[in-house]
């Protein structure tokens, strides 16, 4: 930007000619050089999403059965912390064993309203059970503005493999921690069994 700023103007139309040449160069260039066109043709071309991108939460489950492997223990923390109050949880009356074998409640109803959620990720931050995480899928529009926007437990549940796929650095850490917990619980159970056998 250290050009000759004090140059004389002529006002004879050179500026117009210069502008026309520049636009013509852009016009022709956009047909010849492909990298001039920076537009991504969205539905066909998709930009890879960054790992930290977040849109809407999902519920994690272990194994293949969403009903059996659901990590949520229905503790209501996320429901209470949610700023726009988009989560509705109803606790079950019975219990089922969690990943370490401890009997826990599970959510009989777990609904999140897509139209109310503001993608703040606070539910993820507060969950002590690694049961809720943010998904990267963003094409959530629907033609049904009532039931289509209220996502139930069945629609929210996604397997751990999906989590590993969209969060490749974070998921193995969580998995390692949980494997550690399982190992500890097993060791404890083995020790207890040995003690019982010894006694």
């Amino acid at each position, binding site marked *: *930007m250290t050009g000759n*700023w*004090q*140059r*004389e*103007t*002529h*006002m*004879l*139309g050179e500026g*117009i000619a210069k*502008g*026309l040449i*520049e*636009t*013509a160069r*852009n*016009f022709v*260039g*956009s*047909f010849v050089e492909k990298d*001039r*066109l*920076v*537009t991504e*043709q969205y539905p066909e071309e998709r930009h890879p999403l960054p790992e930290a991108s977040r849109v809407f939460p999902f519920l994690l489950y272990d194994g293949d059965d969403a009903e059996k492997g659901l990590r949520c223990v229905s503790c209501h923390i996320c429901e209470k912390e949610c700023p726009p109050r988009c989560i509705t949880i109803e606790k079950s009356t019975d219990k089922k064993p969690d990943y370490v074998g401890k009997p826990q409640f599970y959510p009989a109803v777990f609904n999140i309203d897509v139209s109310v959620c503001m993608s703040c990720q606070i539910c993820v931050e507060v969950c002590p059970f690694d049961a809720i995480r943010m998904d990267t899928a963003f094409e959530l529009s629907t033609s049904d503005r009532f039931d289509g926007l209220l996502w139930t437990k069945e629609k929210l549940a996604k397997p751990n493999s999906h989590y590993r796929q969209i969060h490749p650095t974070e998921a193995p850490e969580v998995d390692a921690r949980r494997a550690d917990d399982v190992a500890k619980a097993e060791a404890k159970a083995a020790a207890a069994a040995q003690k019982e056998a010894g006694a």
Partner: protein
Amino acid sequence: MMTLVSAHSVDQVFVNLDRWLVAHTPAPLQPLVAILLIVVPILAIFPGLFALTTVLERKGLGRIQNRYGPNRVGPLGLLQPVADGIKALTKEDIVPRSADALLHFLAPVIIVCTAFLAYAVLPIGRNMIAVHLDAGILFFFAIGSATELAVFMAGWSSRNKYSLLGAMRAIAQMISYEIPLILSSVAVIMIAGTLSPEQIVTAQAGFTGIFPHWYVFTPWGFAGFFLFMTAAAAETNRSPFDLPEGESEIIAGYFIEYSGFKFALFFLAEYLEIFAVSGLGITLFLGGWSAPFSFLTWIPSWCWFFAKLLVLIATFIWIRGALPRLRMDQLMNFAWKFMLPMTLLEILSAGIWRFFPQSGFWPVVRWLACALLLAVPYVLLARGLEHGRRIEKRVYRYAEES
């Protein structure tokens, strides 16, 4: 000889078809059918050209900015105008509560009607003109100035400060630029000695060697063509003279309170005016429907008219992509301090051209004299507009260039 006959029949195919159809209708219906056969093609072709131009303009501007432009509806996005039309038709038509409903309704109707009326005197091919008027050019300018009325009706009846500002700008601009527009075509009328567009085209239809006798190839015609097209761009509110609808200042100008199809009508009228005034520019300076070289006369005359029209439209799009909008004072200074003196000199130059002796080396002297008469004032007037201003590096008080 055979090829000549067939070329001529292709050239006159529409004229002959028209005559044949009229001859085969019952005598009481003949006047009505004759009128319809002239009016309906005009009502079909030019809005069709408008639809094509909107998509080409958006694609062209996109390419100028290294974008794709519309490319989703139909092959290459060419059906985009259909989608736009459906959108305009299905949108809610809002009339402001405090608006003058009658004038508000009439403005888009009148502007489209006057825009169409201008086509009555445009020769779009050999023997292809809707109305054979001896004072066709006069009619064209009279009808052209009626659009100002519609613009002011729209701006006033909307009862909105932006629309009124836009209308006032439009009136000031259109009246200022109507003078150079008309004066720049006066030279052609002087040389051709007629106000009839057909005869003006006929006067330019001859050839010297392979080169045509278009007025744009004379010094005064060259200057006149550029002055005419500049004034035409201003007259039709075309960029860089689109102040009446300057989006960044007054949102949409005089049609701010129009929605749905009424807005589309304004849009249509604007483009119809551009085509009409470009058509007049072609008629006056670019030889109308005549071929650019003597060996190309086998191509039908109406092809040449539309080819020239498309070239001018492309130029308008190109200029829109290149130039920023003028400021109001720059616009007025340009009209009164540059355009007006240049058009007066163009008339003087045309007069000298007409009365110069034609024998011996005089044509060369004539050419030089007429060219100098225009080139020297061009430089001087441009310097005068400059007012000793210089482009200087802008100094910012708080923000620094990094």
